[in-house]
């Protein structure tokens, strides 16, 4: 594209080129500006959707304040916030090894749900017949195993026949949902399809109900960071993700890596399911995971598949959605508002990546310009 000398007459108004590099500081500035712009648009959207704001525009300050209030106004809320962040983070962590390998596992929802189901199944059938400690252990093993199986099935077909993993894992989510409703009908013959809280299989309290989950997931993010950055497996995952040809050149068996990584990814989803089952809900419904398998994908992507950065992005998404639920309560709006808020902010962050990856050249300016200054 070096046809500058004669091409001025028809050089397009805007020309793009891939950035060679960008300083982390600049990149993060762009992202933060994007989030702030997103929040601004959220305010406008709220104004359009919430009658109470239209009649009293001065309340817009309260609107933003409620984001914070929703998560931090009482210690109970803070703990609830931390627990929710942990579960969401756990699912995104589980997906990360697969994404690093460029294996688009969008089946986190199903893998996690199968983890919840199998843990609860163990508690349902064995609860009371074995000591609580043994029961908890068996529940954990069941969740890990079933999660791993749910994850490895698409991986096997991808490795053997190149079956499209995005579509495969997506379908597996719904199969999982219906397996859950099948068991609910079997377990609850009355027809109400609601299992209710089980008496057995509850993780012990450390200070309070949530702390153990928070600790486990924090350890997991550090552990996964170490796994991906400092181990041979993690290194192989990065090489396979970057270039299959390079992997072959140094003798890495990429099929083996795909299968091994998806076992890990599925098992970690199972762990998230276990934390939901034994750490919080003690029951299972078709909505036990509540779409966090999908939100987790975005958390992982926003965190650039870096387990430590993902702690922040998970917290951001959770903060937004919890704050928005508080808003829908306080302002009397439908409880789907959090989705709208999170969606708007996500659009801005997704769009901002463009300005990080590409440079924009305007006609007449010989110097390259970034998108947002």
């Amino acid at each position, binding site marked *: 594209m070096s046809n500058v000398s004669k091409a001025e007459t028809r050089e397009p108004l805007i020309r793009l080129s891939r950035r060679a590099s960008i300083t982390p500081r600049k990149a993060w500035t762009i992202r933060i500006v994007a989030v702030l712009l997103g929040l601004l648009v959220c305010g406008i959207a709220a104004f359009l959707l919430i009658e109470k704001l239209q009649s009293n525009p001065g309340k817009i300050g309260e609107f933003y304040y409620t984001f914070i209030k929703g998560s931090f106004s009482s210690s109970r809320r803070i703990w609830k916030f931390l627990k929710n962040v942990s579960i969401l983070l756990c699912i995104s962590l589980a997906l990360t090894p697969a994404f690093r390998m460029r294996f688009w596992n969008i089946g986190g929802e199903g893998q996690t749900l199968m983890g919840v189901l199998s843990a609860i199944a163990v508690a349902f059938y064995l609860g009371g017949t074995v000591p609580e400690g043994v029961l908890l252990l068996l529940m954990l093993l069941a969740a890990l195993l079933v999660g791993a199986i749910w994850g490895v099935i698409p991986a096997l077909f991808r490795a053997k026949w190149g079956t499209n993993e995005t579509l495969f894992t997506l379908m597996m989510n719904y199969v999982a949902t219906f397996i859950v409703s099948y068991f609910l009908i079997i377990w609850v013959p009355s027809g109400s399809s609601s299992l209710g809280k089980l008496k057995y299989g509850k993780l012990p309290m450390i200070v309070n109900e949530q702390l153990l989950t928070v600790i486990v997931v924090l350890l997991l993010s550090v552990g996964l960071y170490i796994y991906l950055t400092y181990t041979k497996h993690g290194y192989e995952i990065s090489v396979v993700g970057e270039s299959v040809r390079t992997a072959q050149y140094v003798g890495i068996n990429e099929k083996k890596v795909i299968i091994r990584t998806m076992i890990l990814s599925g098992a970690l989803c199972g762990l998230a399911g276990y934390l939901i089952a034994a750490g919080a809900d003690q029951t299972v419904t078709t909505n036990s995971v509540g779409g966090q398998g999908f939100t987790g994908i975005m958390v992982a992507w926003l965190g650039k598949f870096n387990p430590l950065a993902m702690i922040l992005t998970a917290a951001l998404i959770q903060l937004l959605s919890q704050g928005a639920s508080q808003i829908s309560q306080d302002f009397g709006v439908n409880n789907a508002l959090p*989705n709208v808020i999170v969606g708007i902010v996500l659009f801005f962050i997704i769009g901002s990546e463009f300005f990080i990856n590409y440079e924009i050249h305007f006609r007449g300016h010989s110097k390259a310009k970034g998108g947002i200054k």
Partner: protein
Amino acid sequence: MNIWVDFLITSLAFGAVFMYGSTGEILTEKAGHLNLGIPGIMCMGGAGGCLVLNLVGKSSLPGFLIVILGILGALIFSMLCGLLYSFLAVTLRANQNVTGLAMTTFGVGLSKVIINKLDSNIYLIGPKLLYRWPFAERRDALQYLGVLFFLAVIIAILSSWVLFRTKVGLHLRAVGENPATADAVGINVSRYKYVATCVGSGIAGLGGFYYIIDYMASQEAYLSVEALGWLSIALVIFALWRPHLTIVGSTVFGILFSCASYLANVKWLNITMATTPLLKMLPYVVTILVLIISSIRNKKENQPPTSLGLSYFREER
């Protein structure tokens, strides 16, 4: 009328939701874009249509105009979503999976907030009869087949015709298969992607609208549109990326989805409650099997478009 014929007709009517959804998704995928935002876009289509009907439903406008305005409302809302998706995924070259999922989160949420504010007495009662022309007076299953059902069939067939029989379709498929080649022969890749995504979104949006207003015509219907959206994405695979096959596929999906309640009446089958979810699971299992079999057989025509999921950047030719 015979219970089986009734069953078939209701399945057909139900399947039209998928016909809209997957025809829309096929158009987008043929341009190389896996749009996971379709469930959200279908919800938004429903919301847009209901919003317009809520405004004009009690006015003295002639019936056919109300019908057309409702459809236009659905089209405008869903096409705006398609435009937003295209801007992010085509112009800004964002990751398609993430953009689509964000679109679904946003669309599902916003549609619920909107519809929740509307008066179901206005947007449901009048339209139901209008949309079920010409069978509105029937008391048997035929009453389910209305204007929007036939529109779905027509759109599916028309889409296939455009895709496989016209120059525009040829160019569109070239964009999805090999954008670099398309670019080299002077096809405007971005424009095709934009148009396909927006038109596809509009069609999908009609599906959500149809389900709320016509097929279910109930106040709670909008809550289950999202699930049908995901099933529509599954149907794309089942129909092997051919819009006219969605007519067959959606009927099969409709039958599988609703057969449990019918089969319960058949004594010798001895169906229990527990079988229902297993039957409802079948469409997904069948889709997985189709996906696996087509990847093993590796017949080129039955594969996803080659550049599906990848953004195109010319860089240096």
